[in-house]
């Protein structure tokens, strides 16, 4: 979906698909493709018409189609074991049967995919948060006074409590959205809320872990990795501001 010039504003994409007989010919680079260099199959959103939203269609593109190339690999803050690459489409001929759904329905498909994707990222964030909280909990649990009572500082304990409460809250938000989705009901705003809260929590928890575990954790530790990995959850599958936009629009509609 994403391109160099269209991220949050996904409908601004410019990758074009031109009908040629029964086939489509796709042109234009795609950016931020997670695992793009390893994938065998892509779903590509491309412009088939002028209309900003209704001019977008979705295609199944196989890796071995001539003209599909892998461009620059991103050097990133985190999630380093998951390659993020540019996928280039240079006159890629795609059979007509590879058009997903109907022509011009691409953006609707994209938004629906994003609802599910956001639940995925929310869940990913929950996992990062839980791991970071566990790092903190383990560290504080080691701090005991002579009678075996927890002796960690209040600042640290209170933070742990807040994070644990937020983790449950975010988890329930995420589960609610997932249940709606399983029930086949619209879950856009609920998924957005879940991702909004869970991704913030993941960052808060990971930062707190580094802060509480101290300088030792700032070098080559689990907490440090979580910190770097957490940061993407506020960015991809709709940045935090986009989640706010979705929620606000649904409330004001």
């Amino acid at each position, binding site marked *: 979906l*994403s391109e160099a*010039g*269209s*991220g*949050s*504003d996904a409908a*601004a994409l410019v990758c074009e698909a031109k009908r040629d007989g029964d086939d489509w010919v796709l042109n234009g680079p795609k*950016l*931020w493709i997670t695992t793009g260099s390893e994938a065998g199959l892509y779903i590509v959103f491309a412009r088939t018409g002028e209309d900003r939203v209704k001019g977008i269609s979705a295609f199944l593109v196989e890796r071995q189609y001539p003209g599909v190339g892998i461009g620059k690999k*991103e*050097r*990133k*803050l*985190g999630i380093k074991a998951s390659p993020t690459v540019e996928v280039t489409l240079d006159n890629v001929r795609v059979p007509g049967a590879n058009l997903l759904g109907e022509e011009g329905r691409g953006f609707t498909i994209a938004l629906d995919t994003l609802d599910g994707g956001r639940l995925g990222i929310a869940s990913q964030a929950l996992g990062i948060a839980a791991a970071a909280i566990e790092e903190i909990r383990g560290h504080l649990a080691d701090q005991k006074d002579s009678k075996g009572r927890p002796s960690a*500082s209040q*600042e*640290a304990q209170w933070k742990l409590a807040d994070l644990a409460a937020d983790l449950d809250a975010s988890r329930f938000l995420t589960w609610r959205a997932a249940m709606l989705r399983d029930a086949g009901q619209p879950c856009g705003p609920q998924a957005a809320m879940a991702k909004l809260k869970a991704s913030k929590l993941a*960052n808060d928890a990971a*930062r707190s872990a*580094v*802060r*509480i575990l*101290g*300088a*030792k*954790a*700032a*070098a*080559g530790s689990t907490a*440090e990795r979580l*910190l*770097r990995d957490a*940061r*993407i959850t*506020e*960015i*991809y599958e709709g*940045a*935090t*501001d986009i989640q*706010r936009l979705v929620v606000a629009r649904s409330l004001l509609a």
Partner: protein
Amino acid sequence: MTDGTQGQGPSATPGQTPPRPPMPPARGREGGGDARPTSFYVAIFVTLLLFVSAGLNVVLLFVALFSSSVGSLGTTAGPLDDSSYDVVSVGGDRSARKRVLRIPVEGAIAEQASPLIGAAGGTVSFVKRHLELAARDSSIVAVLLDINSPGGGVTASDEIHRLIRKFDEENDKPVVAMFGDMAASGGYYIAAACDEIWARPTTITGSIGVIISTLNYAEALEKIGVSQDPILDPRTPHKDMLSPSKKADEEEIAIVRSIVSEMYERFVEIVDEGREQLDRDQVIALADGRIYSAQAGVGQRPRRSDSRHRRGVRADPRARRGRRGQPRRVPPQAEPRRPPVRCRLDLGPPGRDVVRAGPRAAAAQHDRAALPLLLARRPLTAGCHTRPTHPQTLPTSSFAMQHFELNDEQSQILDTTRKFVADVVEPAALEHDEHRTFVQGSIDGLAELGLFGLPIAEEAGGFGLGTLSLVVAIEELAKGCGSTARLLTGQCVCGKVLEGLEAGTDALEKLVGGEALGAFVGLEHGIAATADGDGLRLDGTAELVTGAGKAGMLVVAARTADGEAVVAVVDAANATVEDVPAVGFHAAAPAKVSFAGTSAPAVARGADAEAAIARGETTAWIAGAATAVGTGFASIEAARRHTAERIAFGKPLAKQQAVAHKLVESRRAVDAARHQTWHAARLADLGDAGVRDAALHARLSAVDAALRAADEAIQSHGGYGYTVEYHVERHYRDMQMLETLEHGAEWMRDALVASVLA
């Protein structure tokens, strides 16, 4: 030459507090050549004063009470030993780029505390320190000497007089005296050095004269049959002169009178020299020791403005007026026709009621009238680029508020560093960070520029340019490369620890000269020290020390088992140093340092070591805050640039309120932190005890603000922010790491508990 013990005889009699021997009068005799024995002054110091006679103290008390109850006579300043100072922003100039430094001179003028004359002491050094500040800080365009003093010691008064004249000669900054309830005798003496004198109608002044009063109870002793029989060498028959137990003979009275006359002559000379409108005869006529009310004084006009300084201007109209842009209005003939209530002398438009407005407003008015054209200064630009990001919104009434303008030296450091960052530091930053390689080129450049000696005292071989200069340099470096800022911090922190330690002289020289890269292993690492003969054995591990991977010298703060602090300088080759994959400051050689029975000489122990470590920690916190401020501004600038260019939803991202507000909030927080940082740096440079708390406040605020700014900058960049090319992820990591260093944020809050509860 007799020694002090013998000489203190007369003043050690019951009922008198023996004063400490003062220095011989400095004026004109510096560097020795004084033929008089010290004991002489010791004997007579108690009474050799430029003082209004004792009865006047009652008047002073009355006036003081009156002023506090009526509340119309203006403010009184804090105690003299308070090293804080008031800075009065120039009226009407909201940018507060020009300031007037107010120096309160309260009570008896004396360097040594002396209960006998009601002197808290320290007046000379207090004035000296403030004049130095005024000379150093180019934003200070004038000095207001706020005098409320019945007089004081001859030497102290004369020394202050000399300091003011020296300041006046070396600086193009007017010194204005403002009289409070009383500015008599010594109080007037020092005012005579000022360019102008302003008084209030109720001021008591004058008392131009010198007095030596002796206490004599010889007759009383005789009545009760007590006698004190001094045994003197026949060659020193006057050794017991002025003894309270012996009547002074004619010869001795003549001796004392000649001294008093000599001092008096000097006083007259001072007044004559300082007040152009009065010739010597007029001065002598006025200077019969009497006091004057200010109104009478205006009638007599002894307090006219125009020092020799201004006379020089008259001789050469280009000299001072050229700078000010317009000649001063000096209507001497108009003066007597003015209502006597206005004791204003020769400045400012007519019709202002100085009395009601109080001295501060008076100073402001003075400036409105005379100073607005002074020193058109280059504004300090706070951002990475050329836009000034400092909003300059200090209210004009913010007394004692620090004002953020750099003096010429600091501006030069800023310019030099900024250029160095653009040419050398920033272009290399990304690659070194990504590959975790050391920024050798930047470090060589820092050494070449001499920045390693920036905050180190001149006596210790540094440049003595102070902590604020370091802050300025660090902030700029951090905008380009946090690792480089961090390395300069380490070098200077080591330097500050060793500064003034005899045993650390060689090491300090190497640090300042750039022969060795230093890394500071602070107390937070809990390194244990054990006495080992004359030296120490060190044990323990410092998990993360920036710079340690490339440092040749480790300055280690440690404690012995019984809690004594020690400072050791360790050759890095004698410790186990292991590079670590730190989250931030990749290019600053972050490493783990282990000591296992490592032998090292102690360069300081006990109180010396505590002080040295405190010096280092304070510097580290302030420099850390500056690193955060620079990083914060760099993040904001990156976000500003990106959001201005990036088009989404049909317009630049920056046009979205939510995005723009992130920038606003980030800048607000970083700017506030910068104020705290500079404030802490200024306190450090003033030697103020409040520096520790201020440094911790700045450090916490700055890291919070910078983390937020970097976090929001990543967010504003979207996916781009998550990649290395856009710098903001590096800023984010650096700040995350900084938060854990130098004891960490929680420890810092703990360290602030005691003072907030006090």
